[in-house]
């Protein structure tokens, strides 16, 4: 099992969800986060006071998938989320030791 953690542009949220749904992936957790990689922020001015906003709004999509489906899931996310510009985000992948379904103690891929 792999955990996929994708930091993406907020306006791509719906497209990514649709793309995952299209290949049969239904479970995921999405949170609103702020961050930046190479992307520069922007300047805001309030009554002449300038603020550099370098932490920009992003979404973080987290999901765990069986090894067999890993490649197509990543492909679905990247193709849905890509604009080709700086700021599109990053995907991090982790090995997952185990998964447990709280409702009935299913373990491993069964629990996904």
């Amino acid at each position, binding site marked *: 099992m792999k955990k996929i953690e994708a930091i993406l542009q907020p306006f791509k949220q719906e497209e990514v969800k649709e793309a995952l749904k299209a290949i049969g992936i239904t479970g995921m957790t999405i949170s609103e986060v702020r961050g930046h990689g190479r992307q520069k922020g922007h300047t805001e001015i*309030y*009554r002449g006071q300038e*603020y550099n906003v370098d932490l920009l709004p992003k979404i973080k999509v987290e999901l765990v998938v069986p090894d067999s489906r890993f490649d197509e899931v990543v492909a679905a996310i990247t193709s849905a989320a890509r604009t080709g510009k700086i700021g599109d985000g990053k995907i991090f992948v982790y090995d997952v030791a185990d998964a447990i379904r709280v409702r009935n103690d299913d373990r491993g891929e069964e629990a996904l």
Partner: protein
Amino acid sequence: MQRVLGLLIAQLASIPLFAQTDASELEALKAAVAEAQSAGDNAWMLVCAALVLAMTGPGLALFYGGLVRKKNVLSTMMHSFIMMALATVLWVVIGYSLAFGEGTAVIGSLQYFMLNGVGTAPNDTYAGTIPEYTFMVFQMMFTIITPAIISGAFAERMKFKAMLLFMTLWLLVIYYPMAHMVWGTGGLLGGAGALPCFDFAGGTVVHITSGVSALVCAIYLGKRLGYGSEPMKPHNLVLSVVGACLLWVGWFGFNAGSALSAGAIASSAFVATQVATGAAVIGWLLVEWIQMGKPSMLGAISGAVAGLVVITPAAGFVSPQSSLIMGFIGGIVCYFAVVKVKKVLGYDDTLDAFGIHGVGGTVGAVLTGVFASHSVNEALPEMAGLLDGNGGQVVNQILGSLLSWVLAIVGTLVILKICDIVIGLRVTREEEIDGLDLTQHGEEGYSLDA
């Protein structure tokens, strides 16, 4: 109203029937006319009083609340809201008496202590057509918003307890004397005083005193922790926009209501208020657009408040054309005060109470001396302001403003010193970091776990 009109018609119809009009009927007619005028004036003035209250809460509370960081939103709103209680009580106990009682040129007396002698009968000295209750409660609303304006200067760092003592002393030492000098019987700056100044709705009493006191507070308390190095963006400009709009609406009560009747002067003040505010928004935005590259919503509402402040002493004395010029100048001058002067001088006036109310109030007071005109308000002398050919009025206006500056500076310094010794003005470093909502009031404006 219909009942009164009916009575009037009945009275008029009866006149030709009797060759010799009964003197008592004439008296009844006079009384009916007076009652009709009083009913109209009183209805308007009660609405105005409510409008002026709405300037503080929700108006100013929202305007200021949106501009601070989210950890201080409630404490900032509380600064405005608590004045709706504190200033009310003080006004009833002693404030009305000190401001409007017959006294010296500087302060009233104790004749109306606990509103003794104040009732439904009009007070002919101030407003002969409305119950004195109405006049008293209308003026009360002014004493609520004035100290609330100052709170913008020390937002995000003053102890609540110290703030309460400061506000109480400030009303006693600065507001009541100032109101007496401008509006009270025999006041120094009133029409019959030694230094007659034109102040229609409280440019000096309300805005110069509060704005200048705000500057003193900002300097005395010092900057907020991290000022200039940490971001201190307004946490919710939407609240501020709503608040500013409510201020604008409420200000019609403030300015047009200062006519103290529902007649032509009220209309004139209403129009001047609207026109100047529109012009001030455009003035502020124009300069901001040129200087900063973008016209901001915060700039637009700041310009509106600046325009409202500038026209306050002049509404009811100036034409709509003069209001255009006054508002436009006011918007531009206040922009520079807030954006440039503050930066150069380096004080941390959290919400720009000085830049808008102090500077705008002074600009308004001086320009009132220029544009006030007998043709707009016949209560003014034949030669009212500079445009009427009386340049001396400008000097009077400057001297009057100067007097309020001095009173505000000296008075506020003394009061701050007292509060500092007795209670201590600032919250601790830790409390400031955690935010005043949590440390002063034990609650949070926005709760994620609720």
